Structure formats: C-alpha cells, structure tokens
C-alpha cells in the first residue's frame, strides 16, 4: 500500500509544483517507488517542471476514462528509475476528475508504489478537493505572507472536514508545513513573517523552510527538480525536508541570515 501525500496551499504561485517535483524526486532517490500526479487539469505544469513535457502521450483523465491504462500514461523519469510522472490533461475540463475515477487510479497505483505525491491546483475548487480527498499526509506550502498564511489555514479546515479520512472517521490526515520563499535577511529586518510567526498561527509540524533562491527558477527553466541541484540552498533544504518526512531529526538550515560583520553593516553592502 502506498502512502498518499497531497501538496496543497489554497493560494497559487507559492511553490506547490516545485515542491511536488522536489519531494517526489527526493523520495525516489532514497529508494522508494514514487509516482507524482498532476491534478491541475487544463493547466498542466508538472511535466514542464519535471522536464518530461515532450514525452506526454496519455494523461490522468485518459486513465480515468479507460482510454489508456496506467502503464501507458505513466512517464518514467530519465534520471531516477523509481520515479514516474502522471501528467494532467491539458484540454478537458476539470470535472473529468470524478471521485470514483480518482479513487480507482490511486488504488491501482497503490499496488506498485510506496508513495503517491498529488500536486494540487490552486484554489479550493473541484481539482483541489480531489487532490486532497484520498490523502494520508498533506504538505501545506506557505509563503511568509498574509494572504498565503490565511489561505493555508482555510485549506487546513478543508483537510479536516472534507477528506476521505474525515468522512469515514479515520485517523486524520497528517499535516505538515513547508515554508517557501523565505528571506532570512528580511525576517531579521522585521519585514517578513518569521518561521515562528507562521508557526504561532498555523501550529503545524514544520517539514522545512525553503529559502528564496535563484536556483528555483534556474531549475524550472531547465526542467530539473531543484532538489537535484545539490549546490543550491533550496536544493539542500528540500533534501532535508524529505529526510524529515521520512522521520529523520534534522536541524533547520537557512532560517538565519548570514551574519554580516560590523563594517559591512556600517557601510552597507
């Protein structure tokens, strides 16, 4: 049986797809058979971030509608044998994702995989609720910014009430906070909510803090999940987050600004 992880946020543009790609790659690299599914029907992007956009033949909706089987639609990652991508459909409307259809595909995937990472679309509409419905774990991606934190809290309410686990009175979804686009210098200057501020409001298990980093855009430009960039702070931070998800107790890096010397503070720079 696979563990189903939803990457969600409510607000758009906070880093859900970047996170889904990074976590899925990280889990696969550590030896777990992992599938990552794009639930953003009509606006598929995960294939681009994963760098497999030219290999898409069939998609998630084709599988739901029995127009293709899973093996035809799954794209095996060229860098990691344990990783498969199930792309979203680009043309159909989002109602093509039925609760029964999604459940059947996840069931079938569960037979052959250890982890299924569901990349949720933004918002709280159908696609987003389908992405989280069957989840065992949720990674709530949040920017240290008021609208993102508020939307995350709203999403937590939905996870607690409208998921399969909530409806069948099972143990609730395990929820984790992933704080992205974090700028420790601005936090030090009092211009940005700190990890603690966000934690005080959302009180979630902190999976990781991903620093604002040029590496993220560079990675998406190239179609390489940023976790593979071991030279970058964001890549390393995602690596740590995967370790924590798997139960490792790791200190949080990149949450403190690099200390400037007295003279550089005095003269700027």
């Amino acid at each position, binding site marked *: 049986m696979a563990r189903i992880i939803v990457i969600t946020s409510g607000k758009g543009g906070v880093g859900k797809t970047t996170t889904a790609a990074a976590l899925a790659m990280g889990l696969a690299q550590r030896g777990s058979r992992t599938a990552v599914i794009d639930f953003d029907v009509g606006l598929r992007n995960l294939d681009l971030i994963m760098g497999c956009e030219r290999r898409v033949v069939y998609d998630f909706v084709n599988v739901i509608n029995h127009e293709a089987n899973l093996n035809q639609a799954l794209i095996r990652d060229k860098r990691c044998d344990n990783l498969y991508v199930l792309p979203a459909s680009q043309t159909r409307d989002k109602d093509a994702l039925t609760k029964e259809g999604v459940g059947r595909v996840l069931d079938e995937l569960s037979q052959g995989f250890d982890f299924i990472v569901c990349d949720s679309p933004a918002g709280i509409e159908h696609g987003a609720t389908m992405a989280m419905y069957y989840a065992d774990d949720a990674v709530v991606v949040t920017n240290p*910014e*008021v609208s993102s*934190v*508020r939307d995350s*809290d*709203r999403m937590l*309410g939905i996870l607690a009430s409208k998921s399969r686990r909530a409806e069948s009175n099972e143990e609730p979804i395990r929820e984790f906070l992933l704080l992205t686009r974090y700028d420790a210098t601005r*936090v030090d*200057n*009092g*211009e*940005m*909510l*700190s990890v603690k*501020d966000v934690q*005080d*409001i959302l009180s979630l298990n902190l999976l990781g803090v991903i620093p604002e980093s040029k590496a993220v855009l560079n990675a998406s430009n190239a179609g390489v999940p940023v976790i593979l960039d071991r030279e970058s702070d964001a890549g390393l931070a995602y690596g740590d987050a995967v370790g924590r998800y798997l139960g490792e107790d790791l200190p949080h890096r990149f949450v403190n600004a690099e200390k400037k010397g007295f003279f*550089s*503070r*005095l*003269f*700027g*720079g």
Partner: protein
Amino acid sequence: MGLLDYFRSSQPKGSANVAKERLQILVAHDRAERHRPSYLPNLQREILEVIRKYVDVDMNAVSVNYEQEETHEVLELNIVLPDTVRNRA
C-alpha cells in the same frame, strides 16, 4: 545608507509585526466561523416561527450566538419581545 541603517536597527521592528497581528485576528475569526454548526440558520428560522405563533415579533427578534470555550460550547439565544407584551402583563 549603511550608517543610518546601523543605528536604525535598534528601533522597533517593521511591517512583519503588523502582518502577524492582522493574521491572528483574521484566522481566529475564520476558525470561529468554520466551527459553527451548519444548523444555526435553520434553528434561528424555526425558533422564530414558533415564537411568532404566540407573539408578533420582528424578523430580527431572535439572535443565535455560538461560541466555543475551552471545554464546552455555548449556544446563546436572545429573544427580544415587543414592549406591548410587557404592558399587557
């Protein structure tokens, strides 16, 4: 700039504090709304119907308040009867 910044850094912190305060209020409010039982509007309507069988009260005469305390929930009903009723008694 550098010199000014250095001396300024001891002053109270900037906009992040405001953001946190606004969020705390907003999120508390959002959560209170979310935890309200969904039957409240119906409850309010039906209570009003029952009262109006006996007393001619205004549509806004019944207010239903729901609050969550630490260990229990409080359902508060407030019914305003018109002055004429008291005069009759």
